[in-house]
């Protein structure tokens, strides 16, 4: 499915002959290593290049742009062909943007630091009395409110960065992030970082599925989804997940 021969408007690509991929500013480990998506290092970066390959683009035809989380999933024209920064696929979001089929499935995970009073919590009931933070607009926040249902209002931050700072400086006792981020934050970023456990799925739902975000009704949605499906079927996605995200079942699921 080479795009080079089509005109921009017909091809649906932002720039004719190029594949423009959006990600976060900054993008974090383990999704993107060193905030350099061009390197192909990191799970999402690698997935992006794999999808590009499936679509018939050479690595050199990939152009990276940056956007915030909110910006990328708000309705409106986009400056990327697709965007990936751990967007969970939800029905509400589907009204605003298109999603490819999922490239990764994860769960929401509660983490804390050793000095926090929440460090000893072992169940959802234990967590209720603590101040819990999450990033605004994410399924992490939904998980806090629907699964943990803390006694006090959840604290909601513009970004995981702010949530992490709040955890470090003690304004919140624990934060909820997706599992790979949880591994990364507790392993590399937080002094005394500690995973309390994964949150169970709310009834009747699957785990959080990450999808590539495309503009609403993008002509590319079908072909991008096909590409992701192909990668899933040939085992590439699992391979990349194992390589960059490690094994994910080490954290206990909270009851």
């Amino acid at each position: 499915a080479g795009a080079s021969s089509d005109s921009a408007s017909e091809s649906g690509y932002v720039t004719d002959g190029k594949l423009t991929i959006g990600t976060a500013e900054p993008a974090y480990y383990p999704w993107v290593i060193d905030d350099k998506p061009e390197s192909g290092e990191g799970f999402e970066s690698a997935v992006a290049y794999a999808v590009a390959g499936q679509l018939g683009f050479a690595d050199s035809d990939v152009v990276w742009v940056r956007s915030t989380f909110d910006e990328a999933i708000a309705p409106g024209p986009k400056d990327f062909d697709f965007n990936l920064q751990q967007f969970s696929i939800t029905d509400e979001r589907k009204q605003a943007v298109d999603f490819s089929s999922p490239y990764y499935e994860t769960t929401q995970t509660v983490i804390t630091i050793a000095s926090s009073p929440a460090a000893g919590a072992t169940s959802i009931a234990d967590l209720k009395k603590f101040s819990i933070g999450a990033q605004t607009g994410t399924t992490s926040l939904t998980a806090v409110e629907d699964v943990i249902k803390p006694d006090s209002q959840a604290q909601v931050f513009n970004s995981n960065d702010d949530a992490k700072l709040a955890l470090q400086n003690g304004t919140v006792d624990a934060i909820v992030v997706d599992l790979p981020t949880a591994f990364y934050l507790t392993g590399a970023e937080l002094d005394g970082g500690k995973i309390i456990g994964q949150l169970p799925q709310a009834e009747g739902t699957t785990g959080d599925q990450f999808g590539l975000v495309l503009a609403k009704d993008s002509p590319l949605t079908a072909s991008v989804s096909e590409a992701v499906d192909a990668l899933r079927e040939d085992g590439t996605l699992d391979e990349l997940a194992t390589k960059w995200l490690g094994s994910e079942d080490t954290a206990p699921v909270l009851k």
Partner: protein
Amino acid sequence: MSTTGIDARPPSSIELDRRAFRRQQTTRSTLIAIVSTVVFAVAAWIFVINTPGWSRVQQTFLNWDVAVAAFPRVIEGFWLNVRVLIYSVIGVGIVSLVLATVRTLRGPIWFPLRALAAGYTDLFRGIPLIIVLYLVGYGIPGLGVFPRMPAEFWGTIALVTVYSAYVSEVFRAGIEAVHPSQRLAARSLGLSYSQSMRRVILPQAVRKVTPALMNDFVALQKDVGLISVLGAVDAVRAAQIETAAYFNFTPYVVAGLLFFLLALPMIRFTDWYTARVRRREQMGSIV
């Protein structure tokens, strides 16, 4: 329709004719205004509201169902804003008065305090509130010397820090705006510097700066919405959460209207008061 004078003599026929003409003119003006408004509304309807884009706008920004759904959360957040506002006003009042007082201290021994107060005022008039919020809200708790406090506490501290600088500057300007002859008159009566300050200058200064203070109050009312960046779920954050849930921007409009309704009485009052002060000044009794 009758004379307004005390002795209600009937107006002359010429005057009656003039009044009839003026009434007719007024009626004409009113008619023109109505017609113009209708024409304008129709034009707006044809060129804006009736377009497909408008229904999209309406759907996105003015969706009644979303407004109803978002309202409980937004109003709950708004209540937090109001509480923060109240504490901030109290804090700003105290800190700015202390600052202003320190700046009026005379005598060389107070020099370092004066300089410190002046420097503080300068600094925080120049730094954006959002930076102070980040510094105070994320930085200070990180020092580990204070017990754990909720985000809105640190937000209040940041607001008080910044607004005290503005307000103490307003007080200072007010002190300088009191006519120098008032100070001279007070000193001529034998009042000391601090007596004339306390009993003559400050009371007048406070009146003079009332409009400016009210303006600052309105600004504070709105900046209270910034505490959301610290993680506090105030009206703005609540609206954001609801917006993310529905992909519909009506919750922001709801929050905006709540802030607007909170600010409106103060804005009206400020305008009225400012106009009154100005009218008095323009009457200009000069003795």
